[in-house]
């Protein structure tokens, strides 16, 4: 390992520190802490209502934690509004796919580059030289990503008409267009059949290996999490139940109890 890699291994890329979220009187998250390291695929699991989505929404800045902190490379992200999360390298997909239905695949992925580009309405209206150069760079990047995710054949199609599995890949492409350091995936296996789930698993691993992206996977599908995650965090009733390798978490009696119920119930 080089010095840099050693340093990176020591400092987490993302640190969740004692995060609590309270809605009215209900404690949705209660002092949850864990670290994400560079290049990891971290699986966040838990039964319904465990607080996975709440935590996810804190990371994407839709919710504000009532206590605790979330640090990206040592700096808190909690003062940033939701639209200033993409520029520091946090990309996301949505639980039931949230694309721009009336835009083409190409334009959807182009929107993904928004946080990495600049423009103003006057330069855009006049199509100034620097805007044309920037658009050319955007197009080259989008073409590369579409080729990478095998979406070239549908590039000009409006996304609303595409099959669900393809829409999910478009969403991944859009997230990758912003060059994220961390990719937050909210239940990517939802709505996919058995075979598609494993194709997706391979894809997520390939993206991590080839594009230098750290992945946070919030997932119901235990098979997917256990087969691709390096590290698993299990939540239940807003608290961290267990943490470790997939095998460790799977063997943890508390986790088994949470998923299957205990004998004496």
């Amino acid at each position, binding site marked *: 390992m080089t010095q840099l890699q050693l340093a990176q291994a020591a400092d987490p890329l993302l640190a969740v520190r004692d995060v609590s979220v309270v809605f009215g009187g209900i404690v949705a998250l209660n002092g949850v802490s864990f670290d994400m390291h560079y290049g990891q695929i971290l699986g966040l699991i838990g039964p319904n209502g465990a607080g996975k989505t709440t935590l996810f929404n804190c990371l994407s800045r839709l919710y504000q934690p009532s206590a605790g902190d979330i640090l990206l490379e040592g700096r808190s992200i909690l003062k940033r509004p939701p639209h200033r999360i993409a520029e520091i390298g946090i990309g996301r997909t949505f639980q039931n796919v949230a694309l721009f239905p009336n835009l083409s695949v*190409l334009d959807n992925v182009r929107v993904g580059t928004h946080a990495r580009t600049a423009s103003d309405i006057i330069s855009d209206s006049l199509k100034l030289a620097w805007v044309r150069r920037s658009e050319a760079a955007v197009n080259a990047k989008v073409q590369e990503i579409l080729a990478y995710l095998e979406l070239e054949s549908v590039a000009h199609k409006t996304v609303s008409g595409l099959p*669900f599995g393809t829409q999910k890949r478009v969403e991944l492409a859009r997230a990758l267009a912003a060059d994220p350091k961390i990719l937050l995936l909210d239940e990517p296996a939802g709505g996919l059949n058995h075979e598609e789930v494993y194709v997706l698993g391979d894809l997520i691993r390939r993206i991590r290996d080839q594009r230098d992206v750290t992945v946070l996977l919030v997932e119901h599908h235990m098979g997917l999490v256990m087969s691709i995650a390096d590290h698993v965090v299990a939540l239940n009733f807003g608290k961290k139940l267990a943490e470790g390798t997939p095998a460790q978490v799977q063997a943890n009696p508390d986790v088994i109890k949470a998923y299957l119920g205990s004998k004496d119930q």
Partner: protein
Amino acid sequence: MSAVEELASQAPAVQAVPKRAMTLSSGTAFVVVLLLLIVPLFAKNFVIFQLTQLLYYGLAVLALNILTGGSGQFSLGQSAFYAIGAYTSAILMEQYDVNYALTLPIAGIICFAAGFLFGQPALRLSGVYLALATFALATAMPQLLKLGFFEKWTGGVQGQVVTKPDAPFGLPMSQDMWLYYFTLAVTIAIYIFSVNLLRSRSGRAFMAIRDNEIAASAMGINVSLYKTLAFGVSAGITGVAGGLGAIAVQFVAPDSFTITLAIQLFLGMVVGGVGWLPGSFIGAAFIIFVPNIAESISKGLSGAVFGVLLFLVIFLVPHGARQVAMVGQQLLERARKR
């Protein structure tokens, strides 16, 4: 590869390219511009005036189309921005002796600012509620223009007469014809800027917000900024249209800019096809000419006849002129293949 994915990749990508869907192909555009250049040479002054009217109303509809078709926000208050533009041009020309051509960018900038500011409170509203808030703006405007406080500039209820400019450089053409070509030049320029804008990063941000605000925000788009910018741009273009209107009609008065005007512009947008920029001018033609046609059918019941005609359009082609154009294009392609 799964069955689903195969299905997706087998289907050929023959659909109309969505990016083009908002504009005209270069061939069609060329023909349209050529016609717009030639027709006035053979027309009477009154027809030339009507064509000028078509262009500046078309611009106002285009402005609304950028707001609604582009960023997904409704407005029934466009008449207010139109009024501000018209009065700005009129007052600058008559009281400060500013050249008529120079008054247009000033009207545009003032209206951009007005629209941008109005967009701030409007951010909290969406859909019908936003439409209602803008409606309030449209109802308030004529009365604001009549206020005694502003009277020395606006001329109060009396309004203000505007002198029609002569053709420059001693060009041998009538005032009407010169004004037509001047309006045409401004219209083409604004149309090109609008197409550029909608195809750019900013335009994509507008449309992303229209389609899904939360996803747009996750992609780094500042939703409030772009929503207010859309309001500003729309108001700015409407202001220029208002300025051109004031110069062409040679008169501004508070009661020319009531809520009826805002509804007419809205109607023009729907008839032309929401989100289809060329349709704005077809919609403008509808709101200018169809009332005349209705009157020629029945003087006493012209309103009812207009209503029936409008109803027919909405019933037969709910997506407006855009739908007609698309069907036409498909027929042409089928004919070519044979």
